[in-house]
Every structure is written in structure tokens, then in C-alpha cells.
């Protein structure tokens, strides 16, 4: 776990769809460094034979039945939309093809 470079921060920002300014890049790289240093200590911890914890209080087999419930009224759905047209959400042109 070496220190994090400006380029890496820029790459991460792209992955996270964050348009980060140059100043922010510098600031973040430095700040993240300090945080990451502290995380180096985790590498020291002996976790052999330990199972990961992803849920604080583990539950199993939580399901719901296949019964329809009321949906939101359409105007409520679209009301929050920054830009809607023809009962849909309008977005500007998409560059990426679907994965």
C-alpha cells in the first residue's frame, strides 16, 4: 500500500463520476495519503481462519411474497425529475454503450 498519486486519484474520480479540479486532486492525494498510512496497520493484523463480517447482525433468508403492491403515481415519479419529456426522464446524449 504505497502513497496514492495524483493520477490514481484522477482515475478514481473518473470511475466515481466526479469531475475533480486540479486543486482538489492535489488536496485529496495528500489527505488520502494520511488516511491510507493509518490503514497500513491493518495489514499487520492476523486474520487467519477468520470469516468476514458484512452484516452487523446476520440475518438469513429474508424474502417477500410475489404479490403486487401499489406503485407511485406517475406524476410523483416524474415530479422530482430535473428534465422530463413524454412521461420519461430526459437525458442528454449518452456516449458509453450499455455494458
Amino acid at each position, binding site marked *: 500500500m504505497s502513497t496514492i498519486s495524483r493520477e490514481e486519484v484522477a482515475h*478514481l474520480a473518473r470511475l466515481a463520476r466526479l*469531475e475533480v479540479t486540479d486543486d482538489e486532486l492535489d488536496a485529496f492525494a495528500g489527505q*488520502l495519503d494520511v488516511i491510507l498510512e493509518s490503514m497500513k496497520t491493518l495489514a499487520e493484523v492476523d486474520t487467519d481462519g477468520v470469516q468476514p463480517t458484512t*452484516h452487523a447482525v446476520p440475518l438469513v433468508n429474508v424474502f417477500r411474497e410475489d404479490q403486487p403492491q401499489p406503485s407511485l403515481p406517475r406524476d410523483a415519479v416524474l*415530479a422530482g*425529475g430535473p428534465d422530463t419529456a413524454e412521461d420519461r426522464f430526459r437525458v442528454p446524449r449518452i456516449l458509453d454503450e450499455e455494458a
Partner: protein
Amino acid sequence: MTGNRTIDQTAAHIADAIREGRTTAVEVTQAFLDRIEAVDGTVKAFLHVDREGALATAREVDAALARGEELGPLAGVPIAIKDVVVTKGLPTTAASKILEGWIPPYDATIVERIKAAKMPILGKTNMDEFAMGSSTEYSAYFKTLNPWDTGRIPGGSGGGSAAAVAAKMAPLAIGTDTGGSIRQPGAVTGTFGAKPTYGSNSRYGLIAFSSSLDTPGPVARNALDAALLHEVISGHDPRDSTSIDAPVPPVVAAARAGATGDLSGLKLGVVKEFAEGTDAAEPGVVAAYEAGVEQLVKLGAEIVEVSCPSFTYALPTYYLIAPSEASSNLARYDGVRYGLRAGDDGKHSLEEVMSLTREAGFGPEVKRRIILGTYALSAGYVDAFYGKAQLVRTLIKQDFEKAFEKVDAIISPTTPFIAFEFGERTGDPYQMYLADLYTIPTNLYGGPGVSVPVGLSEGMPVGLQVMGPVLGDDITYRVAAALESTQDTLLADTAPEIER
């Protein structure tokens, strides 16, 4: 200062007064709305006040009582709600610009329960943006001031709820606690705050920060008030797959039992590793805390040292897990379906609009954590970072479980320092993260933790934290109430008057 005004009364007292006809719900709600009008210009705890809605509910309560209906234990008691909880028809922003102006079309489950309990909702309180912070300085709107010293932070991320209660603008409030965001503000504002067992309070309608850690909980002036609220909002919710299907621990009974001041036979653990290390608490905090421990011993509790070696790693573990989950939870804020959209001028592609929106809409701490979380999950690093943190989390859990074989509850100072001054820790995020040193471990474990005011240091409140085993919330309330019983006046009643 203690007083005879409506706003000086406890929630329990107010509920009784309304039920017994000594006052009306409208009078009570009006009193708190007037108080908000009077002092919130200074304290700035509220992002949104809903006068009409609150009074309408109050009128319903009075009408129902007049009809002879029996209402719940907190009917007519006004409440403020942290703006991270979704409220239908009321603006909900999570203190972020990216949700400015968003009016939710649905209520969170805990809000439904508050409404069913006929509690007038005064408004939405300020917080660190998306619940990320320990001082409320990261709100995108404005800072909230600590009623005890307006040059100091009220804690975070739930500084608004704590300050509202501390300044008597609401007798009760809802907060959420992911790494200490209810308890630490409670400690630095001299109020009571509880983080219930994870999963015992529904997260449906709670704007997600870190899914496996977020827990809604009560903010109040004392343990009993908080316990009453705890029982209103808790319980299984089929809309939340992480919701525990188990009876709510009897926290009200426990708070009443604790108030009798008898803790004989109870074993209270103190964590060896908290006392050690360079990040130990300020001496004034330690002194106030130890005075509180002495009181608990006088009540019959036995102090037992427990060793939880993995607690040393709690902070880095938390700061890998929480931002990782957050980076994914916050991906939905993209300007497509709600909230802010920036850069849509015909010259930008959707990908650019999403990036510009998030750049404009998120503050620096949120961006920092998103990048950190993206890093911790990225290919090549995920095993060493996120994966490793999950393993260490198990060790922390095991330390708690081992400790609870020896003791009934674990106590500690809630937070290492008193309320710091504005700007003191925003330059160095890591210094800010240290505020959560003692609160984080139980979030990782999932067990309950409360902060109860224990004394002063340099004139500022200090909190004592009580942690219990999973679903052992009642123990935490019992110990807290017992500590309160040793105090001539509750700290919450001695907050200085606000200078307008």
C-alpha cells in the same frame, strides 16, 4: 437553566400534561415553534421548519383527546428530525446541495411511526452532508452552533438534532448513528443520545451512508425520554431486509429501573486499549468521565477491566468499510431522476453532466470519502483494503462477545475531546476522524450504545458512553438512567441561555 416554561419540561412530562388536560398539544407545539423563532437564528439547527404541519398534527391530537380517544405515550410531543430521514412532502436534503429542493414522495418507516404516534414534526435538522462528519461543519448550507458555546461545534454528523434539543427548541429529535453521529453530538452538547442495536430500527427511508452501519435513534434530554421515543420508532420492518424480527428490548422499563439508582450486581467493563495509545482523551474529559464512574460504583456497579485488542484497529476498519459502502450508495445522485443537474447546456454528454452534477453537488468531505471508498473497492486493492477490513471487523465483534461474557455493559468516555472550535479540525480529516475513536467499535459490532452527560470540562459538556450486547439496549438505558439519578441537575437543564 432549569425553568418552568413548557420548553424546559421533559418529553415524559409534556406527554402527561397533554394527556391529563393541563395543557393542549397546540400550546406545546406553539411554545417550541416560538422558541425556534427566538433562538434558531443564532443556533441554526434547522434546515426547514414546518409550522403548518406541526400545528395541524397538534390540532389533531387535541381533537382526538376531546373525543375521548386513547393516544400513544408521546402523543402531542413535538419532535425534530435529522434531514437524512425522508419525509413526504417536506424538503429532505441530507444537508447536501445535490438534493436541494427535493420533496420526497414517501415517508421513511420511522416517520410513519412518528406520525402514527401523533407527534408533531417541527422540522428537519442540520447535519454534516450525507452524515459524513463529526462537527456539522460539512453541511452544504450553514454551520450549526453549540448552544453551550457558539464558537464551538455541536458535534456531528447529527449536530442539528443535538443542538435543537440542547437549546430547547425540541424536547425530542431523531438522529442517525453510523460511527458516533448521535452519541458524539450528545456528548458535546450535554444531551442524551442513543444508537440502538443495528437492525432494530428500520433504515427504510434513511438516506444511506454506510448500509451495514447506519442506525436511526433517539436524541433527548434524558434517558427516559429517549427510551419512550426508542419504543415508538423501533421494531421489525418488512421493507428493510436488515431489520431484526425480534421484540424491542424493554428500554422504558429499564430506564425507570435505572432511575432508582441501584446497580448492585452489575459488572461494567472498561476497555484497556482505550486508555492506552497516543490518541487518548483530553485530561479534562477523562476527569469528568472518571467522576462519573465513581458514581456508578457508589450505586453498586463493579468495574472490570476487559481487553479488546482489535479495538486499536477500529478506526481504520471503519474508514475502509463506511466509505466503500458510501461510494456505492451515493452513486445514484447523478442528476437524472431527482435533485441537482448541472452542465446540461446542450454541449455536454450525459457522462459529463453526471460528473459536473456530482462535482457541483457534493462537498469536499463527501468527495474525499467517495474516492477513498472507490479506491478501497477497486480491483487490485479490494482484498487488502475492503476485504481485510471485513476480517478485522469480525475480530472486533469477537472482542465484544468475549467481553460480554465477563461484563454486562462496557463504559468509556463518549468522545476524546470536548466540542472543538470551528475550523480546528477541518484542515486535517484524520484529526476529525479521531472524534469517533470510542464510538466506532460498537457500530462495527452492531450493538447498542448511548451517551449520557456526565460532567463538564473547561465549561463544556462531557459524555459517558454505555455499550451493551446486541439487543441488550435495555442495559444501556438502565446504567445511563442510574448515572442521571446521581446528578442534582441534568446537564441538559443547565445549558446557558442563548445570546441572540
